[in-house]
């Protein structure tokens, strides 16, 4: 069994705004193993990006981790001091963001921005760091890296900027790379290139990846394990096969059904009914209650407990509990009958 690199246990992060407390992440648990790719799927507002920011503790002013643990190699980093967190950021965990245009500082060259990261976390001299920056650019497939290093972000195309972000995030060889919707802001053809690049780099450098996205296609391609989130809670988690072939949460099922398929051109599109949840007025029970076809009264009152469907495959849904109880009853009845 490979070592668990990252363990998130019952993470709860809230934003304290003028309008009230927004429970962006409300009891999230998952594990990440060395060298594996974990995908976090969900709509906007489901809490997936907030999870990433919580791990690195780069939440905006109004955000705060109010509960749970994040264990990196066994140590709870939610208890780390600011200085200790700074040592982790960029060094043990790197992150790339959704919009590469706004994520790079417009008044500094891309070379200096990469070099900054290298100088922060390694012992290299300026000259060595600069050389390393050029190396990294070459590694991520930026052409003419020696020339590009002196350019400013606005001189590069979207795809290239994202490559620069990746170079920057990986420059200190972190154990984990978090990718927060890395392809959403890019053209479709560039998307494919970036994803390919990430897979290559993963094979070469062996880091674990947390891929955050709302695009199931991306997930299907790359991920070993998948976590599905809605309204700040986890709906379901398991291996890619588990999720795609045996979904056990109504939300997951809805997502899978709503994917238009080129093979079934005549079929009507099947959206998930209702509107996205208002994070300021979260219901007591399951966040998906109002949109769920199989909702029960208990779903309104009690947040569903997570139960293990199969080894490694967990779902948080009362329907599964109900099924289990029915099965038990049937098995009990059969036993009695067979007596």
């Amino acid at each position: 069994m490979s070592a668990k690199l990252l363990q998130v246990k019952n993470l709860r992060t809230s934003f304290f705004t003028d309008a009230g407390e927004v429970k962006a992440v409300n009891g999230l648990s998952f594990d990440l193993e060395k060298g594996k790719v974990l995908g976090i799927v969900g709509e906007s507002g489901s809490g997936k990006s907030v999870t990433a920011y919580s791990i690195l503790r780069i939440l905006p002013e109004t955000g705060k981790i109010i509960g749970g643990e994040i264990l990196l190699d066994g140590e709870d980093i939610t208890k780390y001091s600011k200085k200790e967190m700074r040592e982790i950021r960029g060094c043990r965990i790197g992150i790339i963001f959704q919009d590469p245009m706004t994520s790079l500082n417009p008044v500094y060259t891309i070379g200096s921005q990469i070099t900054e990261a290298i100088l922060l976390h390694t012992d290299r001299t300026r000259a060595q760091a600069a050389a390393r920056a050029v190396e990294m650019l070459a590694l991520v497939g930026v052409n003419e890296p020696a020339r590009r290093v002196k350019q400013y972000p606005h001189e590069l195309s979207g795809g290239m900027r994202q490559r620069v972000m990746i170079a920057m995030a990986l420059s200190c060889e972190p154990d984990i790379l978090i990718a927060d919707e890395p392809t959403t802001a890019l053209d479709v053809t560039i998307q494919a290139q970036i994803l390919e690049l990430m897979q290559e780099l993963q094979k070469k450098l062996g880091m674990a990846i947390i891929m955050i996205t709302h695009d199931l296609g991306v997930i299907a391609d790359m991920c070993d394990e998948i976590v599905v989130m809605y309204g700040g809670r986890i709906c379901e988690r398991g291996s890619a096969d588990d999720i795609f072939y045996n979904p056990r949460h109504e939300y997951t099922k809805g997502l899978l059904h709503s994917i238009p398929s080129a093979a079934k051109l005549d079929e009507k599109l099947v959206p998930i009914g209702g509107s996205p949840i208002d994070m300021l007025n979260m219901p007591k029970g399951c966040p998906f209650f109002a949109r769920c076809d199989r909702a029960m009264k208990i779903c309104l009152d009690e947040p569903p407990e997570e139960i293990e469907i199969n080894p490694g495959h967990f779902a948080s849904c009362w329907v599964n509990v109900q099924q289990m109880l029915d099965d038990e009853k049937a098995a009990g009845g059969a036993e009695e009958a067979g007596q």
Partner: protein
Amino acid sequence: MWKYVVKRIALAIVTIFIIITITFFAMNAIPGGPFQKEKSPLPAVQAVLEERFNLDKPLIVQFGLYLRNMFRGDFGISLKTGREISAIIGESFAISAKIGAAAIITALLPGLIFGSAAALMRNKWPDRLIIFSSTVFVSVPSFVLATILLLVFSLKLGWVPVWSIKNPSYILPIVALALYPMSYITRLTKSSMLDVLNQDYIRTARSKGVAERWVIFKHALRNALLPVITYLGPMAAYILTGSLVVETVFTIGGLGTKFVSGITNRDYPMIMATTIFLAVLMVIMTLLSDLVYKLVDPKIKFE
């Protein structure tokens, strides 16, 4: 970028030419003309004027000659005193320039510091205090401020002596001139900083493990400065016009006082020359501030 620089300088030159033209022809619309052909204070002065300014020639020719004289540094003589205007401008501007430059620095540096402090300590008491004072000061016209300062510090309390050439005291006029731009810059810096601190690249910097103080001084400030640089031109213009009143109130022998007394005395050649001088100065300062901005913003550098 060089294309831009050339275009901008050309625009400035056109503007200056327009100003000189407007001023000259406007002044000549006054019955009797700027040199008051009909009623001159001193016959000796009148003779000099006729000779030097060819007042009997057609207006267009006069205009050409005026321009030529201007390039030679000859602005004519004051109707009131008969002195060479270029000499008057020369010595009085030296004083005004000193005060003006000091005011610019006094406005800029504290403004940037207070504004950044307010942004960083948002919603805490330093922020509220700074913003409150800035808002109040931005509503006080320079002449009101100047007069009140004079009243309180010079006349009532006697802390600061009244200005004279032998005993020049610059502190009150500098404060009176600088307070409005300083408050404006404070507010501008705060909102610019807040804007910048919300940007994605600040989050990127933090995610790389950059220490918070460098996130602010290296990543944020450099970007937050850009709108402030845009303000440099208008600020220079404000200080220039403000100096007219401030110098008058504090009875300082600078160009502002000379200009105002020229207006009161209807010393037309003085008014004409000073208007042109000040206007050209303003255009040049606006030009400089525009160019500095373009220089500093890399997005424009390479177009």
